[in-house]
């Protein structure tokens, strides 16, 4: 994308029917550090790469708890992300106050999308430069949504945003069919593997990533560093391969089964040594 005469403000269409400012906002998301999300029927996991600017500083918060049943991971302009998180928290609290019930994720996401859309149609505003992965629970189970600066939103089984997210997406595309039946722990392991993909060879430790879970019977919480490190150690010690899940082994589906050497590994059994 290069500069052109139609990209000065968000209310100018290009002759090809594009709003360049909105597209530039989506670029900002691609420049942010990676965030990934995945879900099963009962749990949703968010994970993100947290790089501190220097050894002296702390790293940026990219995962926010919105309510007991909803959390969000952001990529892009984290300041915009913080503001939108505050909006989401406010909506959840107000709904809970009026109805004494949790705000359904699907509705929150639509409100968020409508809020983003407004900024694409006012000449005195700019689009939010942040992509949000919203993970939450409602009556029908666990959900994962992606909210775009354009005001679009989509529901996903698994998704990755931010820089080098394509590597994570490739990994997730291989594994996603097994996710609905995955256990909570396998879901977290898959999230860590996906994050590792985005690091392109850099060592995965709990100091560069953050993981959060929400599920039936489990309020949204960010796992502490020690727990994450323990999980990382577990799969790094026993080998490079991603854990097999029962449904994958039964279906014998695609690459995943081949990686395990056709091992009929159940969820309780540790990943096989090669």
């Amino acid at each position: 994308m290069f500069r052109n005469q139609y990209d000065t403000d968000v209310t100018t269409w290009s002759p090809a029917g594009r709003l360049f400012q909105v597209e530039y906002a989506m670029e900002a998301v691609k420049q942010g550090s990676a965030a990934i999300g995945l879900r099963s029927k009962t749990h949703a996991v968010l994970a993100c790469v947290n790089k501190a600017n220097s050894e002296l500083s702390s790293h940026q918060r990219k995962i926010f708890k919105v309510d007991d049943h909803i959390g969000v991971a952001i990529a892009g302009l984290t300041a915009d992300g913080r503001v939108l998180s505050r909006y989401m928290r406010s909506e959840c609290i107000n709904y809970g106050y009026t109805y004494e019930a949790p705000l359904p994720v699907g509705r929150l996401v639509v409100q968020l999308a409508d809020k983003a859309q407004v900024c694409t149609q006012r000449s005195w505003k700019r689009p939010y430069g942040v992509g949000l992965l919203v993970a939450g629970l409602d009556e029908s189970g666990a959900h994962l949504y992606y909210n775009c600066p354009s005001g679009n939103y989509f529901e996903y089984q698994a998704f990755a945003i931010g820089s080098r997210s394509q590597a994570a997406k490739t990994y997730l595309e291989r594994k996603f069919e097994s996710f609905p039946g995955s256990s909570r722990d396998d879901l977290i392991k898959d999230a860590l593997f996906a994050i590792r993909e985005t690091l392109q060879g850099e060592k995965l430790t709990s100091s560069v990533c953050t993981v959060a879970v929400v599920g039936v019977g489990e309020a949204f919480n960010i796992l502490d560093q020690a727990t994450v490190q323990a999980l990382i150690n577990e799969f790094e010690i026993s080998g490079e391969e991603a854990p097999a899940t029962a449904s994958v082994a039964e279906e014998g589906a695609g690459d995943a089964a081949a990686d395990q050497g056709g091992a009929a590994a159940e969820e309780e059994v540790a990943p096989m040594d090669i």
Partner: protein
Amino acid sequence: MPSEQKLGSAIVDTVFANMVSSQNESSLLSSEGDSQRTQYPYVTGTSVIGIKYKDGILMAADMGGSYGSTIRYKSVERLKQVGKHSLIGASGEISDFQEILRYLDELILHDSMWDDGNSLGPKEVHNYLTRVLYNRRNKFDPLWNSLVLGGVKNGQKYLGSVSMIGVHFEDDHVATGFGNHLARPILREEWREDLTFEEGVKLLEKCMRNLLYRDRSAVNKLQIAKITEEGLTISQPYSLKTFWNFAAFKNPTVGAEGSW
């Protein structure tokens, strides 16, 4: 009861006389542009009783609308459906109940318009009503009702009540007005978790009969509503059998000649 209200309004008038007299200025007690606040009710419904039973909720209310001490209207439906999962019964000012029904209609409409598989259950509706009533009370312009809200959603039974000042609670059996004094004691003795539909109706009829004998604003024409996971039914109006053949009624002045 009318005398209590007159006393109440007399107090209101004297204490806030200063504010009321300067009507052009906005005062603490009135919001912009309003010229009337509910001070006392005009056409009222009497008790509503609700109980949980094995399959859901049963609610009973008579069909009377009193105008002070006159029983003016005898076909007022005080039990209404709210959305897919809830049932509301109202006592108190009938016009305020109609207003509440309009609020609920809008609430349910907007909820359905999301079209996303989620729907407001009885707990949510009860809390919404609590908020509405409490906020109106804080503006000194109450909706003069006591409401019973019951329903079943995803197998969970819910029964609650909320008053005109926003006092709200949930219980296995609730009642409004005189029902609290005449029906709840019966329910405390005889209510059980596993009442069948027939037993529940009998229990409600026992309470309603007691109210019919003792509550001056009760009329002998009632409806019973049932809500379960499957849905809601409100019965056709019917009457209870009563017994007046007591010796004391035949010769009421036997012990006190000249009285009536």
